[in-house]
């Protein structure tokens, strides 16, 4: 079989940038699947490998936040193809290798060591596809004494220091939620794309190793440097940004409605006082300089809150943005789903499922002028694309597939 990217030349047509690239996706949960999701949005044909023996925990109902639901699967699995393959069976592993042999990228997020035990290590996969690019996403990385540690998003944030530095000054560290998983997946996609570009330029494959806790470290790189250079690390400081005031989230009309406001220059401060009709603040000695505003930031917060509290988030935002002051509502998911700006950009769009159901989904987060990204497939059912993958791509006869299904290899 020809290498897919050679079979599909992009001749200036509006094909997505990864058109013709195939990803064998062994990832589970959230971080790894998000990596493959990003590659699929860029146009890769992403084949998710699962088994009914132990489907992705995010596919089946599981207790999250005290309720039972598979609420986190559809968005990240959409755009992918799905096959059933039981990797506990030797013939399942053989089929996995055949799939890798016709793929460009392998993505996996098992605990380090599991792919080796399955016979699917990078070295083993290189033997069937010498130029394969493989990405492994894990909690702590493929090496080191803690490589086997189990983890989820808040624990990556904890170990990487991000959760430690997040929270109110008089409170405890704070859990970072699924954005920690997805930022790890996004980082993995970035490095994988770079490795794939290297393959395109040199013909050489590469193994990309992403540790989610190190992604968390990347978000506190300035704090790590500050500690290394001065011996002093920053503490938790709520919404404060050093030496900048106002810099906070302020209550608005309605229940649990907020607006974020930042004025980091004298010009923005003066514009804020004018736009809010509070030129009296310019006369107030507590607010007379950036340093004074920082010293008196809690009183300043109270004054601004008194102004915002009776106004809508949208009114405050409109007034301040017109004056050049950074301000924006604290958006709920419903706000995001209803925002015309986001709809116009394709960030939020509607998708229809096979049974006629429709839902709002998050589209590709980029706009390419020549090679647009795509989101055009609903979440696949488990094994929905068995025939395409096993018969068309791997050349199995239908009778062989049926036998493998009976033997719980394709299962």
């Amino acid at each position, binding site marked *: 079989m020809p290498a897919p990217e050679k079979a599909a030349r992009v001749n200036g047509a509006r094909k997505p940038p990864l058109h013709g690239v195939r990803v064998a996706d062994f990832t589970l949960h959230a971080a790894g699947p998000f990596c493959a999701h*990003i590659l699929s949005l860029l146009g890769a044909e992403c084949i998710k490998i699962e088994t009914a023996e132990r489907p992705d*925990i995010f596919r089946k109902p599981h*207790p999250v*936040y005290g*309720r039972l*639901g598979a*609420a986190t699967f559809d*968005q*990240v699995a959409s755009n992918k193809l799905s096959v059933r393959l039981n990797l506990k069976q030797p013939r399942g592993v053989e089929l996995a290798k055949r799939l890798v042999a016709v793929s460009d990228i392998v993505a996996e997020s098992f605990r380090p060591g599991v792919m080796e035990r399955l016979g699917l290590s990078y070295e083993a996969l290189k033997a069937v596809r010498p130029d394969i690019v493989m990405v492994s996403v894990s909690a702590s990385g*493929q090496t*080191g004494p*803690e490589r086997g540690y189990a983890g989820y998003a*808040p*624990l990556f944030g*904890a*170990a*990487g220091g991000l959760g*430690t530095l*997040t929270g*109110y000054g008089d*409170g*405890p560290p704070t859990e*970072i*939620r699924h*954005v920690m998983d997805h930022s790890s997946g*996004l*980082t993995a996609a*970035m*490095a994988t794309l*770079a490795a794939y570009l290297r393959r395109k*330029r040199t013909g050489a494959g*590469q193994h990309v190793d992403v*540790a989610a806790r*190190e992604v968390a*470290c990347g978000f506190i790189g300035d704090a*790590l*440097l*500050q*500690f*290394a*250079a001065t011996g002093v690390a*920053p503490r938790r400081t709520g*919404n404060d940004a050093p030496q900048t005031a106002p*810099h906070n*989230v302020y*209550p608005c009309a309605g229940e649990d409605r907020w607006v*974020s406001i930042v004025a980091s220059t004298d010009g923005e401060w003066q514009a804020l006082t004018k736009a809010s009709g509070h030129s009296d603040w310019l006369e107030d000695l507590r607010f007379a300089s950036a340093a004074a505003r920082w010293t008196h930031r809690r009183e300043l917060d109270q004054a601004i809150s008194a102004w915002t509290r009776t106004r809508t988030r949208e009114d405050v935002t409109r007034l301040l943005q017109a004056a050049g002051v950074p301000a*924006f*509502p604290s*958006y709920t998911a419903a706000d995001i789903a209803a925002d015309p700006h*986001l709809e116009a*950009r394709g960030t939020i769009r509607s998708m229809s499922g096979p049974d006629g159901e429709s839902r*709002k*989904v998050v589209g590709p*987060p*980029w706009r*390419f*002028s*020549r*090679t647009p990204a795509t989101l055009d497939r609903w979440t696949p059912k488990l094994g929905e694309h068995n025939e395409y993958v096993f018969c068309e791509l791997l050349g199995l006869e239908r009778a062989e597939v049926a036998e493998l299904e009976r033997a719980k290899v394709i299962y």
Partner: protein
Amino acid sequence: MELEPGGRIAVAPLAGITVVEHAEGVAASYAGRALAALGADVIKVEPPGDGSPLRRSEPLLTREPAASALFHYLNAGKRFVTCDVATEQGRALLGELMAHAALLIDDTPVSRRLALGLDPDSVAGRHPDLVFLSILPFGAVGAHAHYVAQELNVFHAGGEGYLMPNGLTLEMFPDRPPVKIYGHFAELMGGTSAVCAAIAALLVQGEVGGQFVDVSVQDANISVGCFAIQRLGDGVLENRHGRSFKYGGVLECSDGYVGVLTLEQRQWEGLVELIGSPEWALEAALRDPLERSRRGAEINAHLRAWAKSQHVDDVVAKGQALGVPLAKYNEPGDIFASAQSKARGLFSPLDLPGIGSVPMFTAPFQLDGEPVTLTRAAAEPGADNRAVWCEWLGHAPADLERWGLHAGA
């Protein structure tokens, strides 16, 4: 193809690719940094004189002269040139750089682009093969494209701001305003997402030529926060109170904090064993995860009382051996000291001007089993003027003087 001495293909994937970074914001600077860590030759263009205002952004390492930890972190691995794009000469110099580059990163506000010749049409007209990566808070098109925003604003525009905090923090302070994630989380997400798009465009550059890639930091954050939209479709509008696990979470030990999260039955059973299988935890009803959630407050009271007398490192080591997902809330100093960090080679020593050799976090990925190394600390504005404008692009040193650009090192 970039070969190292001895004919080995360079591990750094983007070796040999030139990137021009005309950017002042955090998101675009981080995109440049990530590309540099991946091996690209990233040339940062700043105005002559004091350079980018980001050089004076908190947190500071020294106040006089101002040396910013944030700037140093975001700009390691790059080269630094100056030119004044407010002048025709400066724009011509920037144009020369663009003609020699594969990729331009720019975060000039939309309203100023046309005057600087940095609007998509002008750039495409002059440099048809250049990938133009635009990184702005709300993107280059749309009703909010002209909005100004800082980290706090885009964090809230992306939806995650409304949903923080949760767990113990929220329990202690239920009535406070939402709290941000430390630092520049949203902007760094924007930068990372932008690099994905930039590399994708570079992949097809040979076939389709250059193109305009419009990245919005808000879009990037909605993308990484997509579960909230997923749940909205399922009929659940997430809020801070609904987005907390009902038991586990942050536990205060005698010498610090740990986090624990048990999503699977065997993990809960490991936790019960870790805390010594007390009678309350062995109650048959608590084998049901939904019952545990219903009685989360009661379970947490027990867990918190137990944790008070424990040492963090013991809890993590013993818990992980039992298969319990647990982690220490590491302080920056813990990260430097950790055996895991050392084994992974997370830091490169860099010589910061006026400060000395300091270990710098390199990159959150390894390639072919090798940690990323950084060899170039951020230097003063125009430090590479001579190397870039004269030695690479062929201008005479006297020209630099005439244009008011210092010659650099």
